[in-house]
């Protein structure tokens, strides 16, 4: 049974081993408008968080955003790596998530067949 006491202990451990980080990590953004949610955005979000936990990725931040007007291409997932264009993946399913995380988030290789937009920052 997990408790807030466990969280306090974990916080101590994590803090001890990760000092001075969390600055320039990779950002993953999931579209969570009504359109995104109806298309399965929550499942995609959970799959991303599961991958982060499973692969022990310590410098990834995950955010959600609202409808950005490409409703027919939901679920939309953006990956932003420092110094690289912002990549938008479309029609993402939970099954695509391990590939996107392994290829792009971890190794920096864009998964071309799922890309719907590229924005130069």
């Amino acid at each position, binding site marked *: *049974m*997990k*408790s*807030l006491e*466990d*969280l*306090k202990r*974990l*916080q101590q*451990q*994590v*803090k001890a081993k*990760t000092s001075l980080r*969390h600055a320039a990590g990779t950002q993953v953004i*999931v579209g*969570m*408008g*009504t*359109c995104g*949610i*109806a298309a399965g955005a*929550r*499942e995609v*979000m*959970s799959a991303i*968080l599961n991958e*982060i*936990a*499973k*692969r*022990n*990725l*310590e410098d*990834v*931040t*995950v*955010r*959600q955003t*609202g*409808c950005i007007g490409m409703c027919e291409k939901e679920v939309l997932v953006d990956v932003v790596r420092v110094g690289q264009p912002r990549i938008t993946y479309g029609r993402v399913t939970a099954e695509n998530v391990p590939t996107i995380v392994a290829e792009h988030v971890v190794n920096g290789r864009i998964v071309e067949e799922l890309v719907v937009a590229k924005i130069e920052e």
Partner: protein
Amino acid sequence: MRELSLHILDLVQNAVEAEATKVMLEVVEDLSADTLIIRVRDNGRGMEKQECSKVVDPFHTSRTTRRIGLGLPLIQMSTQRCEGHLKIESEMGKGTLIEALYRHSHWDRPPLGNMADTLQTILVGNPMLDFHYLHRVDERSFSIAASEINEILGGVPLTQPEILQWLQGYLKENLAILYGGVENEES
């Protein structure tokens, strides 16, 4: 949508898009009164009376206001199918209260579904949001507050692998206890 927990995620996202910094979410299941009530109270920008009456109309609203499209009409339809209702109270500059009521035992009532994933998404996806959740099932209750978690974390992000695993387990276990230790219907 097939789960109430997906509608709930949608309602919280509406609040965030209305620039709310504080969201109080309540799910109250009263089995003797046979009701299930979802309440979302935010301190966002609020709406005028006129806009308030229009938000459940899918054709007028999606054009005039960007914050609400099909979300609220879909929720209203699902409450009406279950001898319930959707109530919206809002004040400009103060915030909005949305209340959805369902007959708990109604044949057409969607299952609450995966509330743990909805809460995890809200907490991780909106780290700056002062989010508070209270869930009652008769005399049992579970609550979680982002402020309490953040205070313990002291700057360590929720997306740290160990912390994420804790959060998933904590939510699942505590929600299961609400239903006497068994997993929720269809989760």
